[in-house]
């Protein structure tokens, strides 16, 4: 039964990583940019929840909408201000800009809100489910459900709508897509909006579980999600999900594992980043990725 609860812990943690990894993967899939500011968008979302709930006392539903909306807007603004002018620049410039944006957001938050964490109340409080002797955390179940719905919604969007078709076309060949009459700029903005919207949902779930916003919370979260995206195969939407859940499970089981009396939990981050190295060395395309031959 403890195994079952640990499984649920892993799913809960994995859900957050999966939502963040989806944002990474979508942006990478389209403009081949590792958007390192993505984790920090979640941080901004968490602070928005805190401001709305603890400062303005506006209630959880407003908080959910405000943070999702703010994250979406922020994603689009970052794209327009920082990345769009560099569309034809070398990819390295774009990557460095992403790191710059990440630092800008972190230090900006520290300047505005201070270095100390901000605590907020749980956004949804649903009593835990008790089945026999097992208590199932309702937070974990809600997180899992929301993530699965978001994932299905995203797959529908990419595969069933016209905008999705445009996104796939742009990711295949930007130049050719433009020649076919697709507005590349609009499509990229839309991609950022969707990625950041998912980050917004992630930030709401994160705030609900950990009830804390700190200026640097996005950096480690972003890195772990990046590992998840690479593990799953960067650019692949189901891959990001699988990668996210895999990293969540691995972390949980490393934390729970013991050798004799010695708890292995301090090895958690080391194991996750070792996976990144192994994947990059052994199978750089990840679990779901497929090899694309360089066109000359």
């Amino acid at each position, binding site marked *: *039964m*403890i195994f079952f*609860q*640990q499984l649920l*812990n*892993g799913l*809960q*943690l994995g859900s957050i990583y999966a939502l963040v990894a989806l944002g990474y993967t979508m942006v990478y899939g389209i403009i081949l940019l590792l958007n390192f500011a993505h984790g920090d968008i979640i941080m901004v979302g968490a602070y928005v929840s805190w401001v709305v709930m603890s400062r303005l006392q506006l209630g959880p539903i407003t908080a959910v909408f405000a943070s999702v909306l703010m994250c979406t807007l922020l994603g689009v603004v970052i794209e327009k201000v920082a990345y769009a002018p560099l569309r034809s620049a070398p990819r390295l410039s774009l990557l460095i800009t992403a790191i710059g944006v990440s630092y800008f957001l972190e230090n900006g938050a520290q300047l505005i809100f201070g270095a*100390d*964490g901000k*605590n907020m*109340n*749980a956004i949804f409080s649903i009593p*835990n489910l*008790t089945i026999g002797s097992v*208590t199932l*955390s309702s*937070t974990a179940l809600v997180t899992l459900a929301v993530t699965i719905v978001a994932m299905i919604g995203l797959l529908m969007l990419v595969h069933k709508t016209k905008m999705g078709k445009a996104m796939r076309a742009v990711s295949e060949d930007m130049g050719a897509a433009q020649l076919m009459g697709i507005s590349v700029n609009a499509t990229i903005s839309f991609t950022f909006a969707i990625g950041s919207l998912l980050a917004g949902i992630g930030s709401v779930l994160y705030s609900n*579980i*950990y*009830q*804390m916003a*700190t200026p640097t*919370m996005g950096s*480690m979260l972003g890195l772990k999600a990046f590992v998840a995206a690479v593990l799953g195969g960067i650019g692949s939407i189901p891959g990001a999900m699988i990668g996210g859940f895999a990293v969540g499970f691995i*972390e*949980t*089981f490393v*934390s*729970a594992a*013991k050798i004799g*009396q010695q*708890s292995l*939990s*301090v090895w*958690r*981050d080391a194991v996750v980043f070792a996976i990144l190295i192994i994947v990059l060395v052994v199978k750089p395309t990840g679990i779901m990725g497929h090899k694309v031959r360089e066109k000359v």
Partner: protein
Amino acid sequence: MKKFFALLIVVAMALAITACSSSDSGEAGTNGGGVNGQSENGGSIKVGLLAPLTGDVAQYGLSVASGAELYIKEINEAGGINGKTIEVIKYDEQGDATEAVNNYYRLVDDGVVGIIGDVTSAPTVAVAQASVEDNMPMVTASATDPSVISYGSNFFQACLNDPYQGTTMAKFAANELGVTSVATIYNTGDDYSIGCNDAFVEQCNELDVQVLSQEGYADGDVDFNAQLTSIIASGAQAIFCPNYYQDDGMIVTQARTLGFTGSILGVDGWTNTHEYTDPENLYDCYFCTSFAIIDDEKINEFVDAYRAENDKDPGNFEALGYDAAMVLLNGIKAAEDAGLEAGTDDYKQAVIDGIANGTVAGVTGEISYDGTGAPTKSIMIVSLDSGSPEFYMNY
């Protein structure tokens, strides 16, 4: 060319050294208490204050200094010691052991009769070793390293050791809460957490309290669900969580979310934990500390005086600084009462004896010494049961 660069580096380093030694490293001669060190009738007594006022650990130094200065100001306003005003000479040691020893000698040259300091453990150890030769009476507010009092009988602590808190909480759990099995979760990258955890486990073994699980985590972790699930599955009645408040808040939240209903125990790093979790999670949570802002006459008086002077709330370090000054001045009073002349060996010894034999009623508890430089004082248990800190008992 190589030689030229080598020469250049040597010159640069030499310049750097002279620059360091010529720059004044402290705010020398700051007078305590706004009386400008003037004698009302019988001169003044010089007391040294050694603390990091700039640099990485400045926050602790500034806190201790502000507490100590408040007490000295109050004494001066009440007429000083036998009519003599206390003059504070404050030097900044920047958190550095070498600077600390240099500034210690400056204070000796300035003719102080006793020193409040140092603040952090490493520089304090260095100063403690230097001070033995002069038999200089010294009281540290906050250096918890047990070795600082091992060099000579002239050195006293106003604070309790970290491990002592772990020991106290183990006794409290066994004797007051009637707990028979516990688990711990602590930051394995922090000496303070490790020290408290080890002492707690050791004391539990002595008291036949079963330690079912010891879980670790790393700096910066936010997800403790895996460790807490293991703890809950082990059936422990209480969790000992000797960490800093931000982590503690998240651990309490997650433990309650996972359905843990037993006691959660902490140490003085818990001071602000109630601001980092929902009040309804805090039932059966206790921690020990030498100081907390609770409704108590002596503490209210201190808090009001501190707020009036500094425009913020005092914490542990401010309270310990205040008490360290009280301990030292109590010793000086003994020497003054005996009519000895400041600066003589007899005077210093009288101050040391005065501290060793005296008892002061500080804001962090009643402080006395039984033959060593470590204080015997009660430690306060604070209950968070109602959602905010409340005095529970002295232990």
